[in-house]
């Protein structure tokens, strides 16, 4: 084992896969000159000059070209710079990438990966802070991964670069500098498999990304209140690991879903609805969803902190659920 940052682990995954498969190439804005805005490409500086390059600020063309390249046998990996700027090229994803294989009766393999940062981070404000994974869960046609640790990003990016389906990967800005253990030897992590980060008996917390870490902090603090959380990091949102969640709820009989994206019609609603349809008898309490207030992200840190969910929301919800409030 070695201890490296999330962005170093990501860089290793890209480097190893590019060395293994020369159909992989990667492009986006500001990746080749300074190693990417969050340092993911630092270890790749100067390597593969023809297969790592910067593009103009032309998002519709960037995302759409990934589709075209995949159709002719390449494995493009595109960095979307900030998840917010998926919107300036959105038709290439939602109307093209997500539809073409189905519309053409299963022709072609869309081995392409879109990846980049999302989420709230110190006062980036409304147009640079969004978590928009739910949109891709709603519109059928692209798989979604959201790793929360260096170990997971490395294993899941490697798997994604070998997959034959289109995948979008969201990396929370606050994670890039976080450190964690990564094996020296090669490994892959299958998509669609959740990771039980902590076993517990009282409440199941289903979460992803930054909120995994907030949930773990909440679990620590709740020990003194005698509340034992089971924390499930979904890691893949589409397809999500229903079996693991149901099994856990059958044990704890309580469910909290915690995400950073807006609470209203966030993906937590989908999980909650599925669990009440399929495991209603196991539930001893109404499911609680935790998400951001339904407003664009404000600039001031006071306002940002108010809007953004953190461990405190989980602690409050858990206590309420256990009848302590």
């Amino acid at each position, binding site marked *: 084992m070695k201890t490296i940052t999330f962005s170093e682990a990501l860089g290793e995954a890209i480097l190893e896969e590019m060395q293994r498969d020369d159909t992989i190439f990667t492009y986006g*804005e*500001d990746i080749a*000159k*300074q190693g990417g805005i969050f340092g993911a490409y630092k270890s790749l500086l100067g390597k593969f000059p023809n297969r790592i390059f*910067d*593009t*103009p*600020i*032309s*998002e*519709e*063309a960037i995302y759409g070209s990934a589709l075209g390249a995949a159709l002719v046998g390449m494995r493009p990996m595109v960095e979307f710079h900030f998840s*917010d*700027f998926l919107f*300036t090229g959105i038709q290439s994803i939602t109307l093209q990438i997500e539809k073409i294989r189905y519309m053409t009766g299963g022709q072609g393999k869309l081995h392409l990966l879109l990846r980049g940062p999302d989420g709230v981070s*110190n*006062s*980036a*404000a*409304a*147009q*640079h802070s969004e978590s928009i994974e739910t949109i891709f869960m709603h519109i059928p046609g692209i798989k979604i991964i959201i790793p929360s640790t260096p170990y997971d990003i490395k294993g899941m990016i490697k798997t994604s670069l070998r997959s034959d389906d289109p995948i979008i990967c969201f990396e929370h800005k606050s994670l890039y500098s976080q450190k964690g253990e990564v094996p020296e030897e090669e490994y892959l992590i299958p998509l669609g498999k959740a990771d039980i980060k902590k076993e517990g008996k009282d409440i199941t917390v289903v979460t992803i990304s930054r909120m995994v870490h907030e949930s773990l902090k909440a679990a620590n603090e709740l020990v003194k209140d005698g509340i034992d959380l089971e924390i499930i990091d979904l890691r893949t949102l589409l397809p999500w690991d229903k079996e693991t969640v149901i099994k856990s709820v059958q044990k704890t009989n309580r469910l909290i879903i915690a995400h950073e994206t807006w609470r*209203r019609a966030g993906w937590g609603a989908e999980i909650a609805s599925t669990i009440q349809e399929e495991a209603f008898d196991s539930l001893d309490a109404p499911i609680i969803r935790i998400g951001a*207030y*339904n*407003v*664009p992200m*404000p*600039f*001031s*840190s*006071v*306002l940002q*902190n*108010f*809007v953004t969910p953190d461990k405190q929301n989980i602690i409050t919800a858990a206590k309420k659920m256990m009848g302590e409030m």
Partner: protein
Amino acid sequence: MQKIRKFEQAAEQLFLEGKLPGFIHLYIGEEAIAAGVMATLNKNDYITSTHRGHGHMIAKGGDINLMMAELFGKTTGYCKGKGGSMHIADFSVGVLGANGVVGGGLPIAIGAGLGIKIKETSQVAIAFFGDGAANTGAFHESLNFASIFRLPVVFINENNQYASTAKKQETTSVENISDRAISYSIPGVTIDGNNVLAVYEAAKEAVERARDKGGPTLIEAKTYRLKGHFVGDPTKYREQTEVNNFWGKEPINIFEKQLINWEILNQKEINNINERLDNQILEAIKFAENSPEPLPEEALTDLFVDDTGYDY
């Protein structure tokens, strides 16, 4: 120009001291463009700005106290702390917003142009945007749209030669961005964006044409971003000698020398102006520092005019 420069220098300093959150994109070296263009406008003309928007705001008549308070995220700021540097706006002086989305302002400016055309006033709308923005779909769509409807819009391209780490010539198919005007059958000119009088002359001609129902113009003002893309940018994508060279061509020094040569101002008068501006900036900082932080619950205001929509 000098007011913009001093505001930006103060913002940089405050950011480095850790007093300002978020991102700050400085306009240092590009001041002649905002100053020259805005000198041709009336208060009721409109502009759309960019992520590098402090200069546009100041030149259009924005209040630096309210701007500084916004950079601090205070309730007294232009956006009550909700927007920050990249989203400062003052609709009352015609600033329809800075923008965190590259190219985001161009469609908004043509919309203002549509409104002006339908209302049949003699106002104009100006879209400021960078060299990087000239490669967005929004740029091409907006120029075509403005051309076919002959909208009273002037497109001001601030070609500072970089789009964050990307050199303009490595990402842009044309030598001069103004060459792209040909595709949309509108006039296009390239000017020295560090020469405030050249900017003024070109903008005046384009603005008059727009007011006279002559349709849109594309002006490319060549300039140079003397600071990093944002405060804190490691700036490894260019040589320091290149930056030093452009410090020798920065617009304020050039214009000051001209004013002295032409005996319009003497050094003492320039010093007086500088002193007055320094005081204004200090006042703005004091105003911002002494202003209250927003209350957390104020996050749940300003979404809709009827103040609904927060819960469901």
